[in-house]
């Protein structure tokens, strides 16, 4: 359990600036997720936190103590690497044992043969810890194999195990589940969540899988191009993105962004319909309207509050059906989520009406910032919701 504070961290590799004055406060015991597109600087930030990379400017504090000058090995953090980084010459058990041996045993107790004899009890307890962790991760039968004999998913679990086996002040995880197949990923998600609630240790978790970010985190930080665009609870970020880029990044399929227009009264028109909700007249002009696919619904027929489109593609995921609609020349496509049975009769080329929105529309100004959402906080979210 540790609070971690990053102040005005910036980092450049040569001429390319990777992090721009990042400020981040991670509370003790929270599960903080860093999400963002590939190359946005997530791993770099994590590595600075770990002490593996030195920031150009800024300060890293753990539990209030500035650790800029403390080396990685002494910060007592555990890290799972994006590339596993297992010791290829050691067995799985030895890989997992390594951090324990190095931290919990004196050099005398680490001696090859004499060590286990000298401190039999200690060694035994370490072995027990390793076995317990292996049990959780379902890699018990693999303990005596070397990494080269494992499949990608198994390796990733060993990498996780090597971190989990310790009791560090915080866990840093860099896409630890990216190589697992769907079923295993869901399983590991719940194991990690459980680990977090059991230990109460601070987690800093990097991912580009939204499902992970949304389901596991206490708070998530959406990064893009070296900046943190938004830092909030997952729900708040999903429902009240402060920036059009956040809205587009979070949510699958992507949020529908339609070009809208604000008249001098603050009335909003989009795709031929006028919305009930108004915004301040200061936003006169072009505006972007974000509509999430699951908040749209098929309508039986045309009305003032429906959008009309042509079905160009149906994507059937079994549980859901995504309908891709073309709506007018310069407006673009609209994706609508439907239940398979609702849309069983529709074929490509059919005319479709999309009904009055079940959920909320989100507005963004020309600069990409949320409109009418200034000062939005996750708890003050409702006030800013607009029902079309």
């Amino acid at each position, binding site marked *: 359990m540790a609070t971690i504070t990053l102040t005005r961290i910036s980092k450049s590799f040569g001429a390319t600036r990777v992090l721009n004055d990042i400020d981040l406060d991670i509370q003790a015991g929270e599960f903080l997720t860093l999400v963002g597109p590939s190359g946005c600087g997530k791993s770099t930030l994590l590595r600075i936190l770990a002490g*593996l990379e030195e920031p150009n400017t800024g300060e890293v504090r753990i539990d209030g103590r500035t650790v800029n000058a403390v080396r990685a090995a002494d910060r007592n953090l555990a*890290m799972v690497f*994006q590339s596993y980084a*297992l010791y290829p010459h050691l067995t799985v058990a030895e890989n997992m044992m390594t951090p324990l041996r190095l931290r919990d045993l004196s050099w005398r107790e680490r001696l090859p043969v004499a060590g286990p004899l000298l401190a039999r009890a200690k060694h035994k307890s370490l072995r027990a810890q390793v076995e317990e962790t292996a049990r959780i991760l379902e890699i018990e039968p693999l303990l005596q194999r070397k990494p080269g004999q*494992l499949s990608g998913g198994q390796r990733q679990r060993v990498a996780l195990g090597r971190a989990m086996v310790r009791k560090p002040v915080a866990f840093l995880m860099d896409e630890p589940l990216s190589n697992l197949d769907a079923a295993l990923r869901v399983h590991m998600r719940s194991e990690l969540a459980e680990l977090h609630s059991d230990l109460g240790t601070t987690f800093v978790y990097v991912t580009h899988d939204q499902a992970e970010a949304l389901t596991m985190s206490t708070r998530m930080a959406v990064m893009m191009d070296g900046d943190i665009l938004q830092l909030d609870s997952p729900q708040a970020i999903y429902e009240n993105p402060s920036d059009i880029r956040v809205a587009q990044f979070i949510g699958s399929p992507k949020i529908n962004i339609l070009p809208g227009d604000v008249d001098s009264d603050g009335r909003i028109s989009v795709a031929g319909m006028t919305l009930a909700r108004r915004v301040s007249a200061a936003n006169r002009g072009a505006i972007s309207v974000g509509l999430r696919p699951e908040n749209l619904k098929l309508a039986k027929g045309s009305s003032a509050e429906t959008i009309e489109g042509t079905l160009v593609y149906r994507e059937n995921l079994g549980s859901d059906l995504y309908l891709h609609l073309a709506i007018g020349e310069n407006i673009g496509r609209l994706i609508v989520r439907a239940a398979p049975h609702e849309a069983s009769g529709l074929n490509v080329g059919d005319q479709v009406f999309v009904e009055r929105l079940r959920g909320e529309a989100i507005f963004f100004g020309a600069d990409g910032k949320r409109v009418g959402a200034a000062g939005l906080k996750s708890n003050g979210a409702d006030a800013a919701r607009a029902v079309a």
Partner: protein
Amino acid sequence: MSDATATAAVRERSSDDQFVLRWSSREALKHAVLIVGALIVLLPFYVMLSYSFKSPSEIMTNTGGLIGLQEPFRDDYCVKLGNAAEDCMVTPVIYNYTTAFGKAPLLRYLFNGAVVTASIFFIQVLIALPCAYALAKLKWWGREFVFSMVLFCLLIPVHAIALPLYIMLSKLGLTNSYAALVIPWTISVFGIFLMRQFFMTVPDDLIDAARMDGMNEFAIIWKVMLPTAVPALLAFAIFSVVAHWNDYFWPRIVITGNRELFTPPLGLREFKGDADGDNFGPMMATATIIVTPLIVAFLIAQRRFIEGITLSGMK
């Protein structure tokens, strides 16, 4: 790299084999080429082994086939010591090998060779590995300069610096000692170069992981870099051991006093008479004996050397 590539490596081999099966005449051709090459390569070894079996006159007149007739001949050395000629008749193969071991204390030389070669290799690794690591994986001011220095030193021939070195050693009073045989080789720029090239291929994440696990830089070298660098290390070991086991030039310069400190190749000089006639039989026996440990070591090392450890702990 995913595990898929690792297994694919194996798979491709098997599919290659299938092609080979289809083209077994091609396989035969390959063997033919390789066998011809092997014969040329082996020719001197055949001669060496054969001479180590033969009597002096068989050697000089090149008769007697592979192993000679093994007819007893008179051992001059024995005669000269005042023994009767009849008591001095010896069988060539026995004479050659017993002389190799007896006249020159070859066992002692072999022991010296082992001690010296092992110490050299050990110290070289001890010194080269950290340096190679620092050159490959740490960022510091002056790194490029030091690496250039390594490249430059790679070009320096030992023969050019032998005399200054000898004088430096003698000023320290170190000539005629194991130290003199070892000290000049403690630094292997070849080793630094080779290991650096290899370390460059070790992923940074592996090192970072070790740091997170609580290893200091020193532990990283020996517990992470060394084990992953086994193939390169073996290549270097072969290079270093072969060079120093067979080194004739330096020990000859530096060991002028005590024969007890001779290394195996110096054993060869016991049979040198130059224009007044070398004693080839025991010389070849000695040469055969000297090369044997290396062959054995190579056979042991070869499996691991060629296969090595792929960095399969990584993605």
